């Protein structure tokens, strides 16, 4: 936590891998300043190619979306809603000194509500992971700390994980980039974690909007934070951690303001494995029916 200095779980060394303790990321947009240090740290540590240098026109987001070469992505949402008790609307007539008065003294119901929300998106490391279930080579594995890892040297680039992720995280890296052809996504800095280090993005986050730690601790902390925010006027603060769907919860979960749709997060993510039963039933029925029809055709017309 901020103020803990080197005692913060984002800074101190750990032995979660050896102790087989489930870890997670808790990402809190209410303290994110949109600096994108997480994106930079991720790229530098993991030596991920750049995303191209283009202007999106979408607020300050020029990264776009997660992908094979984008493992952290800071979203910039512009919403016509107030953000807690913050001062909103025109500053007309207020001197710099008077602007520092407590929010309750200003007009809380501004005519032009507006809020700017930043949140750092990442692979969710699902409890039940669509990509892991789909992978035909066994390249994608579950690590000791509960994260989902792609073994780059095993992946043959079949692309099935790409359409099996309900969050659109993993993707195949196109040529001519380094290591092209394989599927890539956030590794949860498994290499760093094995050495007792914190993932690069959490390590550099200046406001601890990204918190790394034990999953159970983080879930408790997230629930506390939501409660605190709701008491402070952030009525639509909620955790995004779909435990009731077939994904059964996330190792990297988020606090969000408002609806998940606005963050490009699916409201009810499902792993495609749940569709197998009906699809295979149909396939087996079709196969048997075909066999019968072919033999009947030869029997009656042959």
């Amino acid at each position, binding site marked *: 936590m901020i103020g803990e200095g080197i005692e913060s779980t984002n800074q101190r060394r750990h032995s979660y891998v050896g102790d087989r303790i489930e870890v997670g990321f808790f990402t809190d947009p209410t303290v994110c300043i949109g600096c994108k240090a997480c994106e930079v740290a991720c790229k530098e540590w993991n030596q991920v190619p750049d995303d191209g240098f283009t202007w*999106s*026109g*979408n*607020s300050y*987001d020029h990264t*776009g979306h997660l992908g094979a070469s984008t493992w952290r992505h800071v*979203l910039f949402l*512009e*919403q*016509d809603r107030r953000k807690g008790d913050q001062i909103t609307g025109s500053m007309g007539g207020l001197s710099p000194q008077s602007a520092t008065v407590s929010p309750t003294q200003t007009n809380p119901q501004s005519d032009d509500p*507006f809020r700017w929300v930043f949140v750092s998106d990442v692979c969710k490391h699902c409890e039940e992971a669509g990509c892991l279930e*789909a*992978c*035909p*080579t*066994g*390249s994608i594995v579950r690590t000791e700390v509960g994260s989902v890892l792609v073994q780059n040297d*095993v*992946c*043959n*680039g*079949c*692309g*099935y994980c*790409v*359409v*099996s*992720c309900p*969050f*659109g*995280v*993993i*993707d195949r890296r196109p040529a001519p980039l380094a290591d092209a*052809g*394989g599927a890539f996504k956030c590794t949860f800095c498994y290499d760093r974690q094995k050495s007792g280090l914190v993932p690069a993005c959490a390590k550099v986050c200046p406001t601890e909007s990204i918190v790394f730690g034990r999953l159970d601790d983080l879930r408790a902390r997230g629930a506390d934070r939501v409660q605190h925010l709701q008491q402070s006027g952030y009525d639509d603060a909620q955790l995004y951690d779909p435990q009731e769907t077939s994904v059964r919860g996330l190792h990297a979960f988020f606090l969000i303001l408002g609806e998940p749709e*606005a963050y*490009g997060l*699916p*409201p009810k993510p*499902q792993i495609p*494995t749940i*569709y197998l039963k*009906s*699809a*295979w*039933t*149909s*396939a087996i*029925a*079709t*196969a048997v029916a*075909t*066999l019968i*029809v*072919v033999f009947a*055709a*030869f*029997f009656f*017309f*042959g």
Partner: protein
Amino acid sequence: MTDQTSPASEQRLDQLREQAWNKGVVGGRGVDVRGGPIPRKPGYYGQPIVKPPVWTWEIPVYFFVGGLAGMAAIIALAALAFHHLDLARAAMWLAVIGAILSPILLTMDLGRPRLFMNMLRVFKYKSPMSVGAWILTVFGACAGPGLIALEVHAHQIFSGTLDQFVRVAADLLIFGSAFLGMFLATYTGVLIGATAIPAWFLHRVFLPIHFGTAGLGSAAALLELLGHRIAPLNAIGFFAAAVESALWVWLEIDRHDAADRALHEAGSGWLIRGGEVFSGPVALLLRLTNLIPLAAISFLFGALISRLGWALAGSISGCDPEAVLASQR
């Protein structure tokens, strides 16, 4: 430039300003200002929520080739059982050619083709891609030797007990090919049906039936075009065209609005609809009028473009955040 300002045009500008101020967007022939104050696109700036498939043309063509090869093996088994040896041989040739082309197509599509053997590193029953790789491998392993044994038997290379042994081996291997073939033709529906792409998973029951029927009809049609104009193949052709006609009606009725609109709109919609029409009613009518070769060509054409249409629909649907959101409401 003129200083003769008309009150009407000024009023229009005021109106636009008011509209822009109130809604963040100017309707009618105005424009949604990119990066304007409040984005109005679905989801997050209209960005895809799931990733579209990375597969290229090889995969839908494989669906066509693999489906045809798998169902050809069933026809070969039935032909063998009912003493149509020439037809069985031709059907097994189709099965084997398909079993050779299929892995080539699949390997071409891999991001790292030289690691194609990693497909057989593990068996994962929950992954249709893994199950499919094994089905195709064992299918090829049965069909190849099965064809060789059948040809050895047909050309009477051996005699006596050895020939009988070759014939039994051919029977067993072709039985194995047929058993795996019926799943080779249908698992592809499971493969794309069990994904996060809305236009696909919403039709996961439809897809194996469609792909299986299209494979069966294609195998019969190609054998007819190769000169095997016999009644059982015509009957199979009738059946496949009738089922495809019914599937077309099913697809038109079983709509999910925005969630599966890629199946009904744009190029993918036309490919799928065209595919169903050519392999359904058109093939059926041509068969009824006894224009069998034309019916066969129509069915094969429909079966191919329908596969291309389903692949394209997956790409369009995966890029469509509204489809993903609609499928989860």
